[in-house]
């Protein structure tokens, strides 16, 4: 943790007709740390992600990313592809969204589209196979392979992503997001469908990303063995409102949280609908 704030959310409200999915949420996401977002089903966690990443336009409030080189960027003003491209805020999805027919390697190369498209000079240099493009294409493959190596996915490089088991698809989706070169990585239930061993590996990976690669992580997760072990900071939502915030130790003993969330059956594996 650097002590700086990477993302600041001020009075964020998202209404769908009469339903208030997020109600006046303010939150500071620290730089180079893991921030956990937890809450019961329908608490507004995925809606919060959709507001951050340009998929929803918030009804009220502001989301500002303090970019180390570009200065503050107001995310709510950007279309979703610009959030990933310019602000380097990249997300994964609760219901995995890989390019199913394309191979794992292709998935990871597509994630580097903007840099490659520029290198190919809108396909002209690519069609002529100019050395500049060929170098960039080679580097893109190398970068994809290096992430696959770190995530232990080298044996499935050429497999169509849709043919992989669920847990592996989750890891491929994280690898693909990393290829976009994120400052802030927003993971929507990355441990869903993973077995305990895979969850433990995910913990190691997330900690490695923050400590060694300087990525900041925003984590929605129901698996307490993941959230409580890796988060530096946790924010608890219920009915779109923030009901508690603090370190994992503080959250464990918070009476509001116990009442709203942890008091319920922990072994339950809830399948959350997009709220």
């Amino acid at each position: 943790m650097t002590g700086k704030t990477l993302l600041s959310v001020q009075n964020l409200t998202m209404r769908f007709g009469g339903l208030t999915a997020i109600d006046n949420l303010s939150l500071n996401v620290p730089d180079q740390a893991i921030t956990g977002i937890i809450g019961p089903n329908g608490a507004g966690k995925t809606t919060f992600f959709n507001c951050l990443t340009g998929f929803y336009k918030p009804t009220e409030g502001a989301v500002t990313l303090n970019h180390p080189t570009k200065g503050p960027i107001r995310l709510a003003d950007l279309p979703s592809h610009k959030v990933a491209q310019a602000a380097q805020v990249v997300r994964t999805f609760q219901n995995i969204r890989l390019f199913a027919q394309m191979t794992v390697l292709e998935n990871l190369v597509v994630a580097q589209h903007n840099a490659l498209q520029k290198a190919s000079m809108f396909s002209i240099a690519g069609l002529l196979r100019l050395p500049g493009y060929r170098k960039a294409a080679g580097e893109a493959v190398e970068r994809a392979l290096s992430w696959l190596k770190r995530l232990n996915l080298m044996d499935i490089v050429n497999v169509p992503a849709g043919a992989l088991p669920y847990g592996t698809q989750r890891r491929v989706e994280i690898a693909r997001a990393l290829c976009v070169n994120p400052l802030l990585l927003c993971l929507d239930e990355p441990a869903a469908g993973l077995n305990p061993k895979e969850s433990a590996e995910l913990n190691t990976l997330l900690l490695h990303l923050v400590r060694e690669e300087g990525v900041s992580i925003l984590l929605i997760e129901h698996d307490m063995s993941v959230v409580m072990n890796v988060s530096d900071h946790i924010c608890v939502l219920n009915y779109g409102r923030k009901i508690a915030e603090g370190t994992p130790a503080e959250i464990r003993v918070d009476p509001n949280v116990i009442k709203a969330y942890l008091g319920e059956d922990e072994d339950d594996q809830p399948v959350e609908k997009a709220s």
Partner: protein
Amino acid sequence: MTAIVHAHHTPTLSERLKDASAAAFIALILGIPMIGMTTVDQGGFLAVMTRWPQLALFVGLTFAGRILFSLALETIKRRSQGRKSGKSAASAAEAANAALKRGTKPESVIGWLAVGIAVALPIFFSEDRYIIDIATSVLIYIMLGWGLNVVVGLAGLLDLGYVAFYAVGAYTYALLSTQFGWGFWEALPVAGGLAALFGVLLGWPTLRLRGDYLAIVTLGFGEIIRLLLVNWTELSGGPNGITSIPRPSVFGYAFLPPDTEGSIADLLGIEFSPMHRLLFLYYLILLLALLTNLFVTAMRRLPLGRAWEAVREDEIACKAMGINVTTVKLSAFAIGAMLGGFAGVFFAARQGFISPESFTFSESAIILAIVVLGGMGSQLGVVLAALVLVMLPELGRDFAEYRMLLFGFAMIVIMVWRPGGILANRTPTLIHVPTGDKA
């Protein structure tokens, strides 16, 4: 270190036999009208004679030749790979580029075989106008299929109005040549560009639509263009169309009778034959179609081509990866339309006469059927489907009223037998093969 090369394994005997059977099957399809049937002059009238023994010999030779060819290829490949792996210092970037190049796979071997047959075809049938005409039509549909494949097969945008761009290309050439005296080669890029512009024009309002909704709007667009051509008489000549469109020339020399100015027969000092022009047109569309194929195959391996496929797979994920879905979709519409426009220019130059009747919805439907039945995104599948769909009605000419029945039956057979199209498997654009560390 690792290297990127195309996947390679030694095929088993059954794979070889399967591969050779596929080649023989194509030879059979091509051979039935070309070798299996011939017309003979029987004292004043023409009779159709069958030559099944010759056809059987042709198919058999193809089968044997294919096996020998694949064995020879195998040996060459093994040798060159042995040489390559010796250079352990090859950088990863270089190796990745090897993957971007076209790999040698059974499909591409069949492809080369088909190109060979197409190039050699006029040598055997230089006097048979009917066959050259059919082959030219097949090639036009193959080119249109390859163009539409960009929009439907790669980008996954269901376009039912593709014939509109074909019409834009045809009318652009017809007007430029008859009104302003432009030649074929000058008009070609302009017509392609104009068709691409219409592609963007159609693409822009339909960006938010997908699947069925997009299909309805594109269908409407196709009809708008056709109705415009019917009703805007001052521009398009209305239902009468545009006549006496100049034929393409070779560096200013035309296919004209001898002793006419600019006659190519005089220039080359050969005897004039009206077949020369048909053969030239055949080779011209073959060239245009092959260029289209090269272009689309190359695009597929470039970032933009991969983005087309990614948009087909998951638009939302594309946005989350920072891909501007708008430009990706519009580029697919524009490039698909441009290729359709090129085909339209050729069509106008070949027919010498065009009218809105050539650009009805049923044309769009046939082109779409070629792409879907061939296997979405498969270049070779388009060729096979075009052969089947264009030649079936021709074969059925003898029992005219059952032609469409035969056509429909063939479509049902393909859909039951191969629901994903004749060639449904997708070829990856990148393959990574790990190589052991070398000292």
